[in-house]
């Protein structure tokens, strides 16, 4: 059997916390702060549009790039909101979530052995997907810089001659956002050293403290950037699987070649619903955003008070606290908390091997749940003889 599976796939590291995931999924009545998706259901007008499209008989393929009206809608939206101009004909591709777009982007860019910079902690797929495409991921540890990619740190990796970098902000799992000034400095370095930028901005609508700056809006960045976004987080549409990639037409054309052979097109029902999301506008998005921000003001001070040191995330819906002061490792902490208090969180190791002292806590859960979870975490720590994060 071993010879059956390709070497590349054999070499892929299975997620180290798969077992923990199975443990969570096997338990009932858990307060889950382990979820990477909004706790809202898709707004009704969007769901209704999906249902209506089925009633009307929209059950066919669409063009490979996606419904023209959806691409046009995205193009207009980006222009009106960010003054970002992408042609719906040649520079936008509708993908199966941002996940597919990351895969297409990397496969389009990478020649065997090409190096791809990935600041960590990062979303789980970037490294493995880069490897599958024949690339070599080079991880930039941002722990010492409060999980921010600094120009100084970036410069330390230039001698490796990377071909591209994958940015993700607001960041899963830390909630870090970058200001325009920070991004401009990073952009200058990328342009100077000819490093292409893939930017995953799927949480872009969830920036709480300052305006989100899409990377391609920076001076000179547009033709050096593949901008990825989607409907999952903004419109609570994770299960619909609709994302999009915008970039220079040569890159989009190349990605479309792979997409047409592997995926063909995104499910038409999902595309119709996504179009409605653009029409329905931003009201539900703004409501959700305010709700997340309120929860953030509860959970972050709450965790810090318990001694789980945590930076204030500026976006997304994640906190990334350290469990170092408890004397426990993340997996031990997460397993104990799950078994004893029925609260699920994700051990930091999922997002980078060197994050065994961290947890990702998602606050995409109701305010009541978060309050209860904080009480349970405190009780758990007390039982373990840990108070205020210091072992007695």
């Amino acid at each position, binding site marked *: 059997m071993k010879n059956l599976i390709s070497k590349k796939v054999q070499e892929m590291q299975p997620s180290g916390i798969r077992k923990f*995931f199975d443990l*969570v*999924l096997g*338990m009932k009545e*858990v307060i*889950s702060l*382990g*979820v*990477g*998706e909004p*706790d809202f*259901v898709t707004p009704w007008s969007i769901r209704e549009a999906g249902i209506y499209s089925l009633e009307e008989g929209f059950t066919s393929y669409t063009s490979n790039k996606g419904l023209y009206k959806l691409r046009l809608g995205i193009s207009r939206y980006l222009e009106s909101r960010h003054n970002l101009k992408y042609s719906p004909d040649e520079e936008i591709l509708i993908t199966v979530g941002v996940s597919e777009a990351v895969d297409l982007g990397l496969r389009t860019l990478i020649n065997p052995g090409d190096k791809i910079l990935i600041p960590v902690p990062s*979303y*789980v*797929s970037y490294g493995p997907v880069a490897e599958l495409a024949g690339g070599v991921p080079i991880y930039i540890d941002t722990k010492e810089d409060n999980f921010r990619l600094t120009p100084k740190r970036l410069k330390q990796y230039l001698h490796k001659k990377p071909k591209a970098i994958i940015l993700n902000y607001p960041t*899963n799992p830390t909630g870090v956002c970058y200001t325009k000034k920070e991004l401009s400095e990073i952009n200058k370095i990328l342009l100077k050293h000819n490093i292409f930028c893939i930017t995953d901005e799927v949480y872009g609508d969830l920036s709480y403290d300052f305006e989100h700056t899409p990377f391609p809006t920076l001076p000179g960045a547009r033709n050096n950037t593949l901008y990825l976004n989607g409907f999952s987080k903004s419109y609570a549409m994770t299960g619909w699987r609709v994302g999009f990639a915008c970039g220079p037409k040569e890159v989009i054309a190349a990605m479309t070649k792979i997409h047409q052979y592997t995926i063909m097109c995104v499910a038409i029902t999902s595309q119709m619903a996504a179009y409605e999301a653009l029409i329905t506008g931003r009201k539900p998005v703004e409501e959700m955003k*305010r709700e997340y921000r*309120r*929860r953030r*003001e*509860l959970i972050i*001070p709450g965790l810090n008070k318990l001694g789980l040191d945590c930076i204030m995330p500026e976006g997304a819906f994640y906190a990334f606290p350290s469990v170092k002061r408890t004397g426990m490792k993340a997996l031990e902490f997460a397993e104990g908390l799950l078994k004893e208090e029925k609260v*699920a969180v*994700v051990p930091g190791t*999922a997002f980078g091997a060197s994050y065994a002292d961290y947890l990702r806590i998602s606050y995409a859960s109701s*305010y009541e749940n978060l309050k209860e979870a904080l009480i349970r975490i405190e009780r758990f720590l007390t039982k373990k003889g840990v108070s205020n994060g210091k072992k007695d």
Partner: protein
Amino acid sequence: MDEILEILEKDCRASTEEIARMLKKKPESVKQAIKKYEKEGVILKYKAVINNELIKDADAEVRALIEVNILPQKDLGFDRIAERIYSFPEVSSCYLISGTYDLLLIVEGKDLHTVARFVAEKLAPLEHVRGTATHFLLKKYKEDGVILKHKEENKRIAISY
């Protein structure tokens, strides 16, 4: 709308401290803002939304929407006659509406007869009332933005990236 109002409209039991924490404001300033809203009549009342259908021993209660056609009075328009009508305790809501009818009432009573009697004996005989149409409510699906159905289970899987 002020976020304080938005929060209270969803959960009027949210405490001042909690609202202050959510909005990163001082509890004192939240308290003052709420007081001001109360004084100005922006906040009129704090109440629970109750699903009567689930209360087994509740006195059976019927509600009716009643459309009322009225003859406006000189100088006073509809207001004077509306006041005479909405002052009846049986009338729980009263709106002036456009269209075929002038007033829309929500009337509550312990049974059909009580409501019918109210219409026949109190409402219809009023001098300026020209006609009424009574619609009894059969089932309540949604009220004040709340869907009256058991909360659905969360369909998300408990853990994901």
